[in-house]
């Protein structure tokens, strides 16, 4: 393998080439404070038996721009950081960490979650890294308390900075995280709308190579319909950039058994491969317990790639339950608020509750919508608040949400994949008393109450 990059690798080109070969690009989440471990992780990713791209996930102090905290942690106990502190590492250290890692076939994406990405983007470009992800909405509402308008302004500048790094043979890449809002329990139409609107925002500010995300939700057929709708939305609204679709393996409460975790990962790989997506961000078998090791990440990458290689394209006819129509209505409403300044239109839409993410506690999110699972296990609207989709959906009012009911919904996928090994499809019935009998099974495993919400990441 060529270890010296004749030019910086271009993320979008690499992904497109892999897709042309009929393969799926697989990518880990991975970030270590220790440069040697970070380098090891990148090399192990590159050398995995799969078509991979690399990931450098930054720590959460860097995400917030709290560089005092990063430096204190680096001085005291660097290993206590939960990612690679790109901005505060000496550029020479990062340069040495990356030396020989990047090749024309192995680009690396910087993942961070920041509503203030300016310094991150500047630093990564200085380090020869030209792919990152995020968005003015998707990296503000769930991951920051910054006003949405401030995040929009920050992201506009970041897009312009990234676009300015374009050079012959070097096309900066930006992925919207909008298809992953809240990780779980967000109806697909809203995920797609935010994903596409963020992509349009990126394009408006000069980015020409964009990927559109969608996080695996809870119902395979609904996910297939959503990804098909996403392709259509990209054709309709962002046709003139190099683009691809990236699928995230389920981001909610993860199965605790190795078998359950593998089955869920396999389902996401089949979704990605069968729906024309180009890239998959994987999860590992230990996701429910802790951050994975490098070896666990490699195992997940190789397993996902193997499943994808044997996956068949989805059946031609995909049921239309209205996801595309809802997403179009949400997007068109924002464009009607000002298509020449999508950032501002996004701020206005959220202020009016015309974009409104269920369960999101950010002060700029209206909080008048709510999602629920229907009896088939599909995500649907329980309340639409002021979303402009009143003529498209008939929200069915849910009973007041209880803590137990929320846990039951949050843990729906975990339970299904852990407890029902042989069941490829979901069969559900609504019980008459609203109790979650499945919790009883936890006694067998020594979990006498719902998995701790104190202790459970999602």
């Amino acid at each position, binding site marked *: 393998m060529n270890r010296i990059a004749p030019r910086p690798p271009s993320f979008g080109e690499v992904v497109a080439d892999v897709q042309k070969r009929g393969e799926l690009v697989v990518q880990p989440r991975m970030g270590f404070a220790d440069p040697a471990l970070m380098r090891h992780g990148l090399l192990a990713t590159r050398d995995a038996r799969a078509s991979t791209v690399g990931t450098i996930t930054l720590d*959460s*102090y860097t*995400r917030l721009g709290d560089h005092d*905290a990063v430096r204190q*942690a680096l001085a005291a106990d660097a*290993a*206590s950081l*939960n990612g690679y502190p790109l901005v505060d590492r000496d550029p020479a250290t990062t340069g040495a960490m990356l030396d020989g890692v990047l090749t024309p076939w192995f680009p690396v994406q910087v993942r961070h979650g920041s509503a203030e990405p300016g310094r991150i983007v500047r630093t990564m470009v200085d380090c020869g890294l030209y792919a990152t992800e995020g968005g003015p909405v998707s990296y503000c509402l769930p*991951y920051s*308390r910054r006003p949405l308008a401030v995040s929009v302004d920050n992201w506009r500048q970041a897009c312009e900075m990234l676009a300015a790094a374009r050079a012959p043979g070097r096309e900066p890449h930006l992925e919207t995280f909008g298809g992953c809002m*809240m990780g779980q329990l967000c109806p697909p139409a809203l995920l797609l709308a935010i994903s596409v609107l963020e992509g349009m925002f990126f394009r408006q500010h000069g980015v020409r190579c964009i990927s559109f995300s969608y996080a695996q939700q809870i119902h395979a057929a609904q996910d297939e319909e959503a990804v098909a709708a996403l392709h259509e939305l990209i054709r309709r609204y962002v046709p003139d950039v190099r683009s691809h679709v990236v699928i995230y393996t389920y981001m909610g409460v993860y199965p605790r058994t190795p078998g359950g975790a593998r089955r869920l990962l396999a389902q996401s790989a089949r979704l990605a491969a069968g729906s024309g997506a180009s890239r998959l961000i994987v999860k590992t078998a230990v996701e429910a*317990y802790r951050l994975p090791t490098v070896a666990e990440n490699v195992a997940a990458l190789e397993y996902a790639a193997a499943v994808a290689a044997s996956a068949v394209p989805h059946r031609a006819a995909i049921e239309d339950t209205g996801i595309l129509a809802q997403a179009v209505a949400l997007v068109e409403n924002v464009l009607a608020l000002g298509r020449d300044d999508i950032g501002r239109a996004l701020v206005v839409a959220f202020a009016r509750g015309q974009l409104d993410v269920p*369960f*999101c*506690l*950010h002060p700029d999110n209206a909080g008048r919508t709510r999602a*629920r*699972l*229907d009896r088939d296990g599909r995500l649907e609207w*329980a309340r639409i608040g002021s979303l402009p989709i009143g003529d498209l959906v008939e929200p069915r*009012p*849910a*009973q007041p*949400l*209880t*803590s137990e*009911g*929320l846990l*039951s*919904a*949050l843990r729906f996928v975990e339970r*299904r994949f852990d*407890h*029902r090994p042989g069941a490829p499809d979901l069969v*559900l*019935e*609504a*019980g*008459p008393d*609203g*109790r*979650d*009998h*499945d*919790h*009883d*099974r*936890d006694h067998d495993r*020594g*979990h*006498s*109450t*719902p*998995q*701790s*919400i*104190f*202790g*459970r*990441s999602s």
Partner: protein
Amino acid sequence: MTRGIVNIHTAIPAPAAPAVITAADRIEPRYTALDVIVTGLSSDAHTWNLVYLQLLLEELGCRVTNLGACTPDEVIIDACTGQHPDLLVISSLNGHGRQDGIRLIRALRQAPALASTPVVIGGKLDVTGGANGEAAARLLAAGYDAVFDAGSAAAGEAAGGLLSFRSYLSALASRADAVAQVGAG
């Protein structure tokens, strides 16, 4: 047929065993009419834990102010100073709970009005998963009234501290109740 987010079941036949939280575990709402502030910490973006805690505390009769995720220390301190809650509940899952939590409690305890406000913290409090219990000891020493460490609780208490948390609430509410009765007498 009832419909709603609370009514989703897999088709697995329901065993006759009792549901998750037994009657004995339940805390009478009248004992827990506490004013509670729920919050994440400055570097932690997790939200579902906060949504859940709000619902749980409200079901127990508490009045809850939810400050949400990524909350800067000064926002938490301002809210506590202005509201004088009976309890501040901090939930942290991103592994920075030890350092962020210690920084917060030191600042909080420096405010005279908050010197004795009950403050508890729970979650995944460091990047080791709480394996050595060191995070909990340090947080207690720094001024927390209780620590519910999911990592160190995993062996003894599979709920990751939730049962202990409910017991703590019950005790706190009883104490508040007793104080109120003394005051009334």
